[in-house]
């Protein structure tokens, strides 16, 4: 691609990295605030969410301008298309962190009935998947990223199933736990959706590199 | 910017832009002196160049105008020039030019078309160009001598000796190199893309050559022809030994013929001053004829050239 377009793409990549970091922080801090019932942290997560909207709009605008200005084709246009779709996924990932923080706020006055194990683990995997997906998108290397993401997707899906059953057991034992139990399932659901979006980013990367929308 | 304003100031007060006779001002530097000197001396040379032209024209007009009477044009020569006019010479010149052209033009233009459109850069091509270039530089007296030996003597059975035919053929030899070369250059100047356009429409080579290529450079070819005509109209040397003498207009090409340049020559050499005066008058006629052909050539080349070149 031309040097001008390359310069523009580099700028867009920087913004995407920034947006990725924000999304990842939202998940990390949102889950941490939930685990520790840290209201201050939750409040911060809620406040930071607006930045994700801003970045989303800005990156979209930059991509559209690049398309209008350069009329790119082949890899160049696939790349920009991938970015446009990836930022939607990143926006959702960050949103789920925000949603988790909202749940923390709802937990005010409530307490956990067990030590959280699966949720932090799911969060860890989700964060790792997101970072992996963004790396692949920015650095444009395949290296079986998609396969790896799909495997981790399965792990998280399984974890969510297990958590659901476990929490159900606790709730049946003591009906007073039902509210908190439902919050646990919600958080697990958010994390599962978030990592689905990370996989989606992986698919966009794949399309960018190969032009195919199916695997291999 | 400050500099620009200063510059404007300087220009306002400086010498260079004062209106009027800048060349009268003293030069401010050695460079300017040389520049001015060159300008002046070149101008001087240019003026000098035109002096002979004006000198000749004036001389001829002054001495010839009195003799320029209708009789001169209308009547033929009588009494070896002491009486009568030069009608036979005028008509004779026209006949010579027409027949010479009639012979030279098809040959030259045909050869030009062949060498530029049809033949490859081969031997024949080079030979034709080389001989044409050489012939173009041969002095006219040599043509006259050759014409005498070849047409008047060697081919006397065919030409009848010193006749209109011999003279015309000699003149045509002089025309051929000029017309050939100018036609070649004109044809070559036509962009290849025009020929390609014609061929791409399914036209044959000949059709293309005739309807596009020649047509595109037609004014240039015509100009070349007219210039060649103007040249031979005024030639004397080729005609001296090849045309013979005729006090009237010949009715057959196998008769002798009088011509303007030759007549002027003989009148000028004549002991009788009355006849000498007629030479000047005849000169005016010849100059006028040649000049008008040149003017027409110029007009043709410019007028139609605009149509062709525009765009």
């Amino acid at each position, binding site marked *: 691609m031309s040097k001008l377009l390359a310069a523009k793409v580099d700028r867009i990549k920087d913004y995407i990295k920034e947006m990725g970091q924000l999304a990842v922080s939202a998940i990390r801090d949102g889950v941490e605030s939930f685990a520790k019932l840290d209201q201050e942290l939750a409040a911060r997560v809620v406040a930071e969410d607006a930045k994700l909207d801003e970045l989303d709009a800005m990156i979209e605008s930059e991509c559209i301008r690049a398309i209008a200005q350069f009329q790119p084709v082949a890899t160049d246009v696939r790349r920009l298309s991938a970015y446009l779709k990836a930022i939607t996924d990143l926006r959702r990932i960050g949103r789920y962190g925000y949603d988790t923080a909202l749940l923390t706020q709802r937990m005010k006055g409530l307490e956990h009935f067990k030590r959280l194990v699966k949720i932090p683990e799911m969060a860890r995997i989700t964060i790792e998947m997101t970072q992996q997906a963004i790396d692949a998108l920015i650095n444009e290397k395949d290296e079986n990223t998609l396969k790896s993401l799909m495997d981790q997707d399965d792990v998280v899906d399984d974890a969510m199933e297990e958590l659901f059953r476990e929490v159900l057991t606790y709730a049946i034992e003591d009906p007073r736990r039902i509210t908190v139990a439902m919050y646990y399932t919600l958080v697990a659901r958010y994390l599962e959706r978030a990592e689905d979006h990370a996989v989606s980013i992986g698919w966009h990367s794949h399309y960018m590199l190969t032009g195919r929308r199916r695997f291999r | 910017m400050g500099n620009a304003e200063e510059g404007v100031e300087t220009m306002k007060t400086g010498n260079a832009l004062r209106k009027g006779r800048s060349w009268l001002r003293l030069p401010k530097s050695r460079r300017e002196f040389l520049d001015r000197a060159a300008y002046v001396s070149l101008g001087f040379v240019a003026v000098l160049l035109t002096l002979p032209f004006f000198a000749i024209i004036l001389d001829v007009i002054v001495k010839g105008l009195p003799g320029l009477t209708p009789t001169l044009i209308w009547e033929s020569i009588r009494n070896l020039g002491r009486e009568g006019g030069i009608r036979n010479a005028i008509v004779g010149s026209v006949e010579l030019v027409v027949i010479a052209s009639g012979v030279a033009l098809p040959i030259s233009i045909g050869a030009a078309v062949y060498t530029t459109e049809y033949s490859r850069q081969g031997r024949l091509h080079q030979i034709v160009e080389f001989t044409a270039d050489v012939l173009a530089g041969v002095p006219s007296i040599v043509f006259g001598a050759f014409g005498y030996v070849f047409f008047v003597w060697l081919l006397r059975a065919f030409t009848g000796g010193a006749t209109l035919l011999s003279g015309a053929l000699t003149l045509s030899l002089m025309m051929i190199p000029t017309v050939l070369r100018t036609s070649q250059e004109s044809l070559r100047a036509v962009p290849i893309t025009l020929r390609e*356009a014609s061929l*791409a429409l*399914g036209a044959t080579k000949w059709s293309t050559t005739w309807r596009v290529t020649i047509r595109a450079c037609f004014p240039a070819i015509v100009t070349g022809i007219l210039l060649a005509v103007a040249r031979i109209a005024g030639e004397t040397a080729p005609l001296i030994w090849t045309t013979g003498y005729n006090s009237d207009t010949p009715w057959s090409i196998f008769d002798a013929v009088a011509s303007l340049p030759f007549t002027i020559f003989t009148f000028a050499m004549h002991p009788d001053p009355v006849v000498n005066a007629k030479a000047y008058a005849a000169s005016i006629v010849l100059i006028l004829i040649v000049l008008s052909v040149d003017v027409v050539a110029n007009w043709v080349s410019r007028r139609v050239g605009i*149509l062709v070149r525009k765009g």
Partner: protein
Amino acid sequence: MEAKVEIKALNAWYGDFHVLKNINLQILPYTVTAVMGPSGCGKTTLIRILNRLCDLVPDFHMTGRVLVDRRDIFDPDVDVYQLRREVGFVFQKPNPFPMSIYDNVAYGPRTHGIHGETQFNKIVRRSLQQAALWDEVRHRLAEPAMKLSGGQQQRLCLARALAVEPVLLLMDEPVAFLDPISAQKIEELVMILKKRYTIIMVTHNVQQALRVSDWAAFLYLGELVEFGKTSSIAETPADPRTEAFLTGRFG
């Protein structure tokens, strides 16, 4: 659908220079095919073979077969003048004849034996209409063609080619010398013309090729590197050389 043009195992040389290497190509009727590639890749040579203009070049020779409407155009029985009527050509630099607009358009038909003023009038009108030039020049058909603007001259050349009713229209970088607005007009014309003619267009301009064509052929150093539907090549070219060319890594 039957191919309009089939090129089979075409190899061509200018003297010792191997300009086209084993080209195999099929052009479908009523489509626009763009032939692209960097300078010197052989694209102009390729289309000049299709109307046998290559015959004019002294040390040109080739092997392989070229079929138009299933007939071998190099067959000794073929009337090359008739072939050139059926295969129209528009050149890179507009080259109208130094004649009137009318005579330019009538030149082709006249060459091929059409006569009669009514006939010519009809043909001239129809051809100029197809080239979207009629309205601009209908009142000045007798004016010299050279007075027209560049864009108009090129449309005139197009009308001239269409006047002999070709089936295949070849265009060699037709807008290379035109301003953007004229260029756009001609591109729009091409989109309309393809309903009646099969068009092959050589172009340097990637954007134009992608805009205008249905099929795209990419030539590099005499080889046909890739040939396919324009839209899919624009999204995902199969060959890295095509990719490099499209993304401007070499011009």
